[in-house]
């Protein structure tokens, strides 16, 4: 079991075995005692792109929250005289086909994307985590049923399934919520199941069993906390995907319904004016791209930072 020292030293984080002076005087500063949070902080300090992305996300979330204070207009107030007005000092992004201020609608659209990014994703991940834990921990029939169900869900192209679910529920934001939650739990369940299976074989779980610790305690106190890095990684994948999916569904007309604002819906509504008034369709697209890209850049950084934890 002796590690060859070349592999140890290759890592920036010297393992404690190599890095410890005699027990009498352990020197805390030399130990590899970085927590997950520390690692992410270090990553943000070093990775400029991820840091910038983080700032963008925070700003956009703030913009969503304080939208009414950032614009003098109402998102749904139509004004025929401003119909398709080009960008000007009053309307920095111009007005749409009903004379509504485009920038205002963009701001309010942020709310939809932020909500879509957070809620259905979280719901799906909580469901997926619990199912994955049970499937991995108990195995047997429970595992079989849950995993075949996940197989079935994963067999659909997620957008197509979301389309069908959303269609069945007659569109609207709520139906997107449900559609995305119905689609996204499966991947989480799979990842958490795999992690649970590997954790179950770990000696510390066996130790807990030998101590007579209850199964539920083992599951939630020993295994679940060790799935945390995986969950964070899944989150960084799921959020941008959900935002994109919502935009796509709305663009197809089966997501957000007018008059509510959604970036995807805005692109859809402005499509007919693409060649004469290109900024109308381009602006919401840029918003989607920036938001999703920011999440992906940040997610990449976070994944790198958590890499050693994922390999445990």
């Amino acid at each position, binding site marked *: 079991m002796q590690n060859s020292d070349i592999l140890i030293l290759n890592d920036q984080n010297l393992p404690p075995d190599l890095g410890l002076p005699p027990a009498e005087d352990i020197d805390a500063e030399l130990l590899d005692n970085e927590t997950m949070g520390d690692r992410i902080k270090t990553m943000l300090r070093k990775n400029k792109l991820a840091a910038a992305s983080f700032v963008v996300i925070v700003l956009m979330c703030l913009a969503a929250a304080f939208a009414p204070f950032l614009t003098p207009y109402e998102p749904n107030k139509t004004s025929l005289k401003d119909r398709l007005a080009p960008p000007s000092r009053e309307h920095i992004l111009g007005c749409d086909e009903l004379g509504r201020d485009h920038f205002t609608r963009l701001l309010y659209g942020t709310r939809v994307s932020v909500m879509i990014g957070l809620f259905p994703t979280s719901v799906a991940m909580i469901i997926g985590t619990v199912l994955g834990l049970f499937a991995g921990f108990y195995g047997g029939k429970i595992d079989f049923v849950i995993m*075949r169900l996940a*197989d*079935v869900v994963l*067999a*659909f*192209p997620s*957008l*197509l399934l979301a*389309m*069908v*679910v959303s*269609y*069945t529920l*007659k569109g609207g934001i709520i139906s997107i919520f449900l559609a995305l939650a119905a689609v996204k739990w499966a991947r989480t369940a799979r990842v958490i199941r795999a992690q649970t299976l590997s954790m179950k074989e770990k000696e510390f779980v066996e130790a807990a069993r030998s101590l007579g610790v209850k199964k539920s305690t083992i599951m939630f106190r020993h295994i679940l906390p060790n799935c945390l890095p995986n969950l964070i990684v899944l989150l960084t994948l799921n959020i*941008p995907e959900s935002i*994109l999916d919502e*935009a*796509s569904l709305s*663009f*197809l*007309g*089966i997501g957000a319904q007018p008059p509510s604002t959604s970036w*995807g819906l805005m*692109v*859809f509504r402005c*499509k007919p004016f*693409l*060649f004469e008034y*290109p900024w109308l*369709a*381009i602006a*919401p*697209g840029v918003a*989607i*791209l920036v938001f*999703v*890209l920011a*999440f*992906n*850049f940040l997610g*990449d950084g976070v994944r790198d930072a958590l890499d050693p934890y994922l390999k445990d």
Partner: protein
Amino acid sequence: MARYIIKRILVAFPVLIAVSLILFVLLNVVPGDPVTVMMREHIKPELIEVFRERMGLNDPILVQFGRYMVNALRGDFGMSYKLQRDVSAMIREAFPHTIKLAIYAALVAWIIGIPAGILSAVKQNTLVDRAFMSFSLMGVSLPVFWAGLLMQYLFAFKLGWLPVTGYYSPRYYILPAIVLGWQSAGTIARLTRSNLLEVMKNDYIRTARAKGLGETVVVVGHALKNAMLPVVTMMAMQVAGLLGGAVMTESIFGIPGLGRITVDAMGTRDMPLLQGSVLFITAIIIIGNMVADLLYAFLDPRIRVE
């Protein structure tokens, strides 16, 4: 190996049936009576019941499903409510357009994605790496529909290099293939890169170097094959996945493929058409995934040679 194949095919079947059932149930609980949709308002209320009975809509849903599946296996997906045409004939017409688009897109994805991934891994943490990876991330983050519109505006409308919409010659497929392929290229590049980097950490890479092999031989000869195993699977799966992605692209570029049919059917609430096309796409994806798995098994001696 033969047994592995049989097993894998046997596993695919229940999934296919379950997928069909879920679709069927989802689409059949939609509020709104199909008879009304079909006949619009020109129907006396008392006749609705008669039609419902005749169409078997009053049977238990499982019976309806069974009947549907038996017919579907015979190639009969029923009649489109709106267009009064045979759904299977419509699918037959649309499918070539979609598969063409998917193959073009896959080519774009592979030709860009794989070399980009390899180069990024070899030049890890250099400018090249960062450029390729940002480009890949763009592909993954780009809303397909918006990218399509943007390209139409730029290359078709402003520059006039390529046609805006249509499906008459390969030229018409360039923009849609790029739009659709970019996303997959991003995924493939990222997967190739991370796999290759992971494989390069293995002991047998150290062995290969200790043998005196050159770095190119080490990467191409020893690392790449191991790294590409999952990528090949992913590629095979993506051909199928691109069919799903075609839904968006087709409706923007006016290609009358499966995706277009699906979106149109959704808009007109044309149930048999929607059901048929979605089921068809999903079936192809399941088969595609199965092929991907078999491909993996074939390439990996650990599975191939028991």
